[in-house]
């Protein structure tokens, strides 16, 4: 026990002595700690590859995601048929044309998986960004001003928080879907649709209703963040350096932005990185139950839903989207855990 502790202390001392003459830097230290975590590095590499796949989808996808030949429907890849001979329908088409086979309309599964990253990843990142920005602003105001303001603002969060998130998203999506379905020019719904077309266009998708998914996820995502930011600020604002800033006459805005935010941003980033898989899961869940993206835009959730209906005869249709989703979840979870350990070593091991 003692020898082990000593050696740990010795290591720390050695690392410290190596660092002499170099100013302490939160981000550089965190980066070095992150690189030492092999699972996190692997997760990071996969995330980068997924983002890359989303960006260069038109160049790497062998076929168009929405076009298929119904004569080639349910094509099972030959290599899979060799591995799972007993699970595949006797009269299934087996071919090498599609690496991962084709779906019920003869669309290439691989291409749809690749384009699916353009749905899943933006939802994950947009959810995290919305939660981050809205949550921090809301939480800072509430925590910094305290008193009555805090009381009212936090009661609102409490009520929203008590509403089960998934049920709220389902309800909102059902509302969006029917409200924005067909509208005449000049209405608010019409302008929403215009914005949505721009969003879909930016993501390189032909339709899909991504804006509404962003809205649904974003509107429910920020409450946790607001609570976290408020809690952090409450513990910070008593500190001497904040008092000092008050004394030299800094105004509230300056104190929040220059003195408080830099100190709370670490835990906030960590909490949002850890939540990205949750947002991705929301979209998958919504598309699975038919409230997510509109066809023919490929979503992994919708693909799993289609595939699980044909699982007895054509297991490839559910196998590959499920694997893609699992891989993505692993990658983000490993990266998130690694970031947490790197940015805030005190939190290590807690979840």
């Amino acid at each position: 026990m003692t020898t082990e502790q000593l050696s740990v202390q010795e290591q720390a001392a050695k690392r410290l002595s190596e660092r002499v003459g170099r100013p302490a830097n939160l981000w550089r230290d965190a980066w070095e700690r992150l690189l030492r975590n092999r699972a996190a590095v692997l997760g990071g590499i996969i995330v980068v590859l997924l983002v890359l796949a989303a960006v260069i989808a038109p160049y790497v996808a062998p076929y168009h995601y929405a076009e298929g030949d119904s004569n080639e429907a349910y094509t099972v890849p030959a290599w899979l048929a060799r591995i799972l001979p007993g699970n595949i329908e006797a009269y299934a088409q087996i071919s090498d044309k599609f690496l991962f086979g084709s779906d019920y309309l003869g669309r290439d599964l691989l291409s749809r998986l690749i384009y699916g990253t353009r749905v899943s990843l933006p939802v994950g990142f947009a959810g995290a960004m919305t939660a981050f920005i809205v949550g921090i602003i809301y939480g800072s105001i509430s925590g910094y001003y305290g008193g009555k303001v805090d009381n009212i603002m936090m009661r609102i969060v409490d009520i929203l928080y008590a509403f089960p998130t998934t049920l709220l998203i389902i309800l909102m999506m059902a509302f969006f879907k029917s409200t924005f379905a067909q509208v005449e020019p000049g209405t608010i719904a019409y302008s929403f649709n215009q914005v949505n077309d721009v969003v879909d266009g930016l993501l390189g998708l032909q339709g899909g209703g991504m804006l509404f998914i962003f809205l649904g996820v974003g509107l429910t995502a920020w409450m946790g963040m607001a609570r976290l930011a408020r809690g952090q600020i409450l513990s910070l604002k008593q500190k001497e350096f904040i008092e000092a800033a008050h004394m030299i006459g800094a105004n509230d805005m300056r104190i929040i932005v220059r003195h408080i935010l830099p100190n709370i941003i670490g835990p906030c980033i960590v909490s949002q990185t850890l939540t990205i898989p949750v947002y991705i899961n929301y979209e998958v869940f919504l598309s699975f139950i038919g409230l997510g993206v509109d066809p023919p835009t490929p979503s992994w959730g919708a693909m799993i839903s289609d595939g699980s209906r044909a699982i007895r005869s054509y297991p490839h249709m559910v196998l590959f989207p499920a694997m893609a989703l699992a891989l993505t979840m692993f990658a983000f979870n490993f990266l998130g855990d690694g970031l947490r350990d790197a940015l805030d070593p005190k939190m290590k091991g807690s979840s």
Partner: protein
Amino acid sequence: MGRYIVRQILWLIPVLFFISVITFALAHAVPGGPFDREKALPPEIIANLEKYYGLDKPIWRQYVDYIGGIVTRFDFGPVYSSRSRRVNDIFADHLPVSAQLGVVAMVIALGIGLPLGIIAALKQNTMWDYLGIGVAVFGVSVPNIVLGPLLILIFALTLGWFPVAGWGTPAKMIMPSFALGTSYAARIARLTRASMLQVIREDYIRTARAKGLSERLVMVRHALKNAFIPVATIIGPMFAAVVTGTFVVEQIFAIPGMGKYFITSVTQRDYPVVMGTILLYAFFLVLANLAVDVTYAFLDPRIRYT
């Protein structure tokens, strides 16, 4: 303690009021009535139907009638897509199945998660520990939407151990319950391990050992009870996740529960069913959270609620 519980229960009233208003408002803000057909019905018939269902009254009146019906008669209203059944009939037919699924899944989550976490913590840095962590990492990352189809592929279609789908017999219940419970078993294992590791380093554990208590007594009475405190907090969110998880798992395994019915009614825009389900589930979830808060206060006497 008593005052705390009373206050929490009183707090439920605004929460439930808000939930019901939001649910009702969103469902009724949808343009087009529930009687829009591909072939438009004559306006007289629509007017009659609206009168029959009370949709011609002002919106606040409809809300009061709806909530009043639930509170006084436990009546969740009509089903627009079927004249012979009401929302209550659907609850009676399908809710017990979902409840079974949810309960078995939660038993699995706790029954696997707790022992796994405890063993991993007690045998830290041994094979058991690594096995526990490995299972936990796998379980946390693989959502039920992935696990369900994979279980069917491996254990039903390839190995033939379990039936592919359905409900009613124990053999049919195993795979769906695992698909639903595993990710929470993993979360609980992870949390239990972390919190056990923290607790067994506390001074009072050393004191308990020093006064000569048996290891078993130290662990059960002193360590476990305290290690369970953080775990209790996860049970509220777990209940919520299990409830929504049933929507997915029932679809994958073709289980005739509420989830499958809920999804159909969402796509068919049968709003009384959607609204009834959400209100009922939200009510359960809020109650579950209250129960967790109370358990929390019970487990940790340091928490004094006033």
